[in-house]
């Protein structure tokens, strides 16, 4: 199947990103002036030292905005800080200059004085100060304290999960053009063009109809451009609007990392009750997340963490509580997995701990607790039935293909030797699973729309609300349509996402881009196909001499009339075809395959018969009923599932970890495009590996991010990839819920990288000191954390009372 629809442009350097757009005459550059301390009162902001510089053009603060509040869920965040700052990196003012270098140069000369105020710098501090965002949430099923009191075994624990930067290669970017009559057109690197449009309009006091957002493509998003692209675009738009000149804003990687929010850090307390066979009886979990200074999407992220605290396992008595904390860090935001990875990290850690306590292999503990169609063990703690359960298949395939049992024995023997002989290498092996719920848990977001235009030569332009960030949503949608019409995929050109074509769209997020927009595009295409079918069924009855192309100009023939296309709502419903077949670029009547017409000719004949060649459709996912207040209901349309087995090698002297081999088995239903799907699997897995191993955010005492570039923030590089990396799909033709039986893939494989983290702990637990308790290691399991876990005494000796097993 043909690669990504932009691949030929990517490899030749011809793909256009926001900053690749040529400079316009009169264009200005916007540089953001931001706080470098976590919390304080703005005492002085003096721009006079730069006002006389020939490169200086303008300077804007909150006072220049029509409205200074935005926020996706709660409108609690100023576009530009006023009076006080709440995080290091918070935008305070905009410096507009002739070009980007002068912006950086002059920014240093602006006098900004902020009087520090006491800041909240951790989840712990927030809990103590009762500094929260939103209210506490609870989801439970049959929760009963007696289960814990009477259980044969109980473990209580604490898990620290730190944040991570998206590290999309293209930093946040926006280019705003003023257009006649007070309009603004913004080219934004955004996963959510509609939100950009609305935030800009609101901030500038314009009607939504005066603002158009255009997203051609992003150089990566991963959730970081879901909500947080909006203020960036607003900055550019403000300058463009005020000056009536095009305004460009391209954050440097450093500024981007300092200013924008990350994956929410979590602190989790858990209590698990289980029997001597390792069957989980009850779980009580309390999740606290660090939301940063403003709400952003943190409450939704918390909800998804709570909904994934069961992962692949049936837990009869369960309570999970969640509370987002307000701290003085950048507002944390969506990041591939959206809370899911945190809930799953907890339960996978618990499985490993149970195994260690009972001396049973963790794989067997997983088998025993898996959701199953037997014995009523197929309902989640939020009351959704796990349909089309592929977990056991994924687990067994992964175990078999990875030779789990044999390698377990080998590794055990090798570790035994290493311990006895004082060798430095320890090996670990672990499998984790994923059951990722697909749908936005906020019901109204589960809608999409699409606009399909067919031109008279039979080529198409397709516009949807989906944004392309590399994941291949455009290629998948084009592929769906190509299959529908039986035409080559490159006959379908996916157009830039524009809010003047597709309005009121949802963000391209929650792995749902293809599900929502592909379904909408297919519904639109089917309307057109219906009309073309009816038209063809009549046209093909005529001799060619009576075709519109020979008669329409003179008007010698009566027009072919057709009925109105029905309004399809189910993309999997096969429409009435009038006995017309579309096959390999040709169209014919089933009963007369000899008489064929080229698709392009048919389209032209249809035009001449005044038949519309364009269609719009809207799609809403049916059947999602999740009540956020009770925490019960069908939260998801379906689950994407999978399993991964990872083997790691750690060096006891340095704490270095190396991923030796990974076997992934994913259920992606019937993929539209297997090549793209596997790319998502490997990319998400390696991204997840970074989160659980080398990616460490390091803040100064003032709460300023110090690891704000790749020289200090270490995403995996090519040498970090697993030495052996086997990616496999489990065939599954039975996902009837989704368009064409496919399954969303963007986020779920990221969670499988937790197997690297559990494998590291599996290696560490071989050490004699961990015979009786599990070597709990935080996320990320950095080299230093591993070394500390290997030899805590050495560190205690040096650090004395400052030694803390969780925090580095």
């Amino acid at each position, binding site marked *: 199947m043909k*690669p*990504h629809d932009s*691949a*030929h442009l*990517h*490899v*030749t*350097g011809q793909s*256009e990103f926001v*900053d*690749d757009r040529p400079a316009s005459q009169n264009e200005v550059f916007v540089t953001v002036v931001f706080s470098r301390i976590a919390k304080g009162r703005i005492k002085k902001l003096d721009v006079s030292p730069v006002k006389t510089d020939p490169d200086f053009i303008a300077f804007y603060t909150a006072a220049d905005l029509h409205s200074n509040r935005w926020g996706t869920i709660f409108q609690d965040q100023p576009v530009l800080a006023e009076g006080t700052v709440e995080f290091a990196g918070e935008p305070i003012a905009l410096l507009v200059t002739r070009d980007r270098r002068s912006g950086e140069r002059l920014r240093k000369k602006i006098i900004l004085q902020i009087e520090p105020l006491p800041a909240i710098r951790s989840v712990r501090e927030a809990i103590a100060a009762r500094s929260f965002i939103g209210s506490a949430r609870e989801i439970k099923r049959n929760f009963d304290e007696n289960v814990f009191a009477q259980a044969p075994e109980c473990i209580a624990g604490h898990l620290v999960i730190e944040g991570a930067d998206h*590290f*999309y*290669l*293209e*930093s946040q970017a926006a280019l705003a053009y003023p257009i006649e009559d007070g309009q603004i057109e913004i080219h934004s690197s955004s996963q959510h063009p509609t939100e950009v449009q609305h935030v800009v309009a609101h901030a500038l006091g314009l009607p939504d109809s005066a603002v158009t957002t255009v997203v051609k*493509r*992003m*150089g*990566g*998003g991963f959730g970081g451009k879901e909500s947080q692209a909006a203020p960036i675009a607003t900055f550019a738009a403000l300058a463009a609007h005020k000056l009536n000149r095009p305004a460009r804003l391209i954050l*440097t*990687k*450093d500024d981007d990392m300092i200013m924008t929010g990350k994956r929410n850090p979590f602190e989790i307390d858990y209590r698990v009750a289980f029997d001597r066979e390792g069957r989980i009886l009850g779980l009580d979990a309390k999740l606290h997340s660090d939301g940063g200074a403003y709400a952003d999407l943190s409450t939704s992220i918390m909800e998804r963490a709570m909904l994934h605290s069961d992962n692949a396992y049936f837990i009869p008595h369960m309570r999970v509580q969640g509370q987002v904390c307000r701290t003085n860090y950048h507002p944390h935001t969506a990041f591939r997995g959206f809370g899911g990875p945190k809930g799953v990290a907890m339960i996978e850690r618990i499985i490993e701990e149970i195994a260690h306590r009972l001396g049973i292999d963790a794989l067997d503990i997983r088998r025993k607790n898996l959701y199953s169609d037997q014995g009523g063990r197929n309902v989640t703690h939020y009351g959704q039935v796990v349909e089309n359960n592929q977990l056991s298949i994924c687990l067994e395939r992964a175990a078999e293909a990875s030779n789990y049992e044999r390698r377990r024995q080998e590794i055990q023997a090798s570790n035994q030797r290493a311990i006895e002989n004082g060798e430095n290498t320890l090996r670990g092996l672990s499998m984790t699973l994923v059951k990722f719920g697909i749908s936005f848990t906020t019901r109204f977001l589960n809608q999409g729309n699409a606009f399909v235009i067919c031109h008279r030569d039979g080529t198409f332009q397709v516009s949807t609300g989906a944004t392309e*960030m*590399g*994941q291949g949503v455009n290629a998948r949608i084009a592929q769906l349509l190509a299959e529908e019409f039986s035409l080559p995929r490159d006959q379908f050109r996916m157009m830039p996402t524009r809010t003047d074509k597709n309005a009121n769209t949802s963000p391209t997020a929650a792995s749902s881009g293809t599900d929502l927009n592909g379904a909408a595009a297919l519904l639109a295409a089917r309307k057109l196909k219906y009309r073309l079918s009816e038209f063809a069924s009549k046209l093909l009855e005529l001799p060619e001499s009576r075709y519109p192309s020979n008669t329409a100009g003179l008007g010698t023939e009566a027009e072919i009339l057709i009925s109105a296309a029905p309004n399809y709502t189910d993309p999997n419903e096969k429409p009435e075809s009038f006995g017309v077949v579309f096959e390999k670029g040709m169209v014919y009547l089933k009963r007369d395959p000899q008489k064929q017409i080229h698709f392009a000719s048919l389209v032209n004949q249809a035009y001449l018969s005044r038949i519309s060649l364009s269609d719009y459709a809207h799609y809403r996912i049916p059947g999602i009923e999740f009540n956020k207040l009770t925490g019960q209901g069908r939260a998801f349309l379906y689950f994407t599932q999978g399993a991964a087995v990872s083997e790691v090698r750690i060096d006891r*002297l340095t704490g270095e970890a190396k991923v030796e081999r990974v076997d992934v088995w994913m259920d992606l239903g019937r993929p539209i495009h297997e090549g793209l799907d*596997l*790319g998502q699997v*490997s*990319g*998400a897995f*390696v*991204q997840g590996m970074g989160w659980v191993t*080398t990616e460490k955010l390091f803040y100064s005492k003032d709460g300023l991010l*110090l*690891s704000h*570039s*790749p*020289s*200090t923030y*270490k995403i*995996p*590089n*090519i*040498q*970090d*990839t697993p030495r052996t*990396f086997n990616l496999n799909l489990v065939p599954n033709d039975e996902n009837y819920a989704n368009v064409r039986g496919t399954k969303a893939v963007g986020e779920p494989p990221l969670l499988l990288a937790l197997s690297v983290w559990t494998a590291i702990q599996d290696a560490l637990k071989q050490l004699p000191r961990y015979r009786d308790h599990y070597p709990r290691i935080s996320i990320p399991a950095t*080299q*230093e954390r591993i*070394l*500390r876990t290997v*030899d805590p005494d*050495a*560190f205690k000796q*040096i*650090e004395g009372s400052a030694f803390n097993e969780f925090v*580095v």
Partner: protein
Amino acid sequence: MKSRNTTTFFLNGEKTAVTGADNSLMLADYLRERRGLVGTKIVCAEGDCGACTVLVTKKSRDGKKSSAFQSINSCIARVPQLDGLSVVTVEGLSQEQHSQCSVQKAVYEAHGSQCGFCTPGFIMALSELVDRRKQSGHSNLSEKEIKNALTGNLCRCTGYDAIIRGASSINPSQAEDLEKRYCSKQIERELQGVRKTPLVIETEHFSLAAPTRASEVTTWLKKGYRPLSGGTDFGVQVNKFKTDDTKVLSLHLVEKADVITVSSNRVSIGVRVTFAELRRAIEKRFPEFASYLDIFASPQIKNTASVVGNIANGSPIGDSIPALMACDAIVVIQSGAKKRKLELSKLYLGYRKLALKRGEWISGIEFQIPDKKTTVQFLKSSQRKDLDISAVNGALWIERGAGGKISKARLAVGGVGATVLRIAAVEEKLQGAKLSADLRASVVEALQKSITPLSDVRGTSAFRRVIVGNWLNETLKKIEFEARGVRS
């Protein structure tokens, strides 16, 4: 001597002259903003992600069967640093607008690009490898060399798997001939002419001088020009607005600055010798050092950064410094035509403070190669194994004398103080001693007393202590056991 005021290089085969203030731009900015060649991307502006990778001709060919090109980070290379070279960008690879070269085709077909932002950089870094293997007559690429060639390129989308697969499908012997197009004899002749004339650029906000004679360097230094060899760190400082230096003294035209001499037990290198060149020169004679060079910095940086520059930059965590100190390195300090020599371990007076007088510069460095009785061990510890700034680094030189005793010991450690340190307390204990568990313990203790590591973004103080202590202990243990093995 007559000088030029125009930087001259070939850009995708087209002779390019840059005058005036544009010379202060980084090549990546120049390409994107002045030439509309936006295929070259800028992400980190510090040479750590490879998105800006372009190919440039090497100053001199290393052997007949090598590539004429090497990859560099264009985001930290100022335009005058391209002076006298031929530059190829991603736009220059394919023969025409809608075609793809074999590298592009391979990455395309393997789904090696997702968002596409890093892709041009990967294509360029891979093209360098392919050209190298083509010139040496190979028809395939191993996974190891693919990974090594792409260590300096970050991708956040693919997980690299598809890129590796795509690269593995390339047959270098059938790849397009870059040399024919972009380093023809005629181009090379023209460029040689360019390189013979000094370059002096003076604009309102930026001045650059590039003399051709080493003896002229001091003149410019005395005028307040800052010397630049590879300039990889300077480029970062400029991009991040951490330096106000607007007068630059580029050594790229200095005669004989690229010379490497390898004798039976010593290596001597000129000021412009890059890490890549050093590695090639010592690969056979000093493989331990060569493989140490493999894990630090990216290919792009090693193709640009000079060893002397790393030394002169004087970072307490500079990766070559402890290694060279352990190898008894001597720096050659020049002023006008006069030269003096100084032990590398005496060069550092404090944090990034060098024992150089006004008008003096480091024109070369010499160091020792171990013989059969000598063991040299290197340490580089960082958050990520490859291409990461070290938390700590170090090197230990041990010569074995008669009776299993150590006749000579040198230990240098970085990342544990304001400068890289020679640890005299350890060296004294080892000198003349016989290795044993007790000695090891007391040596490690002496080391711990000699160092004062900080806690920072790369690790805590305790972490640095534990790592360096473990390493020293383990290294001595290995030497001890090997020696015993030899005897028994």
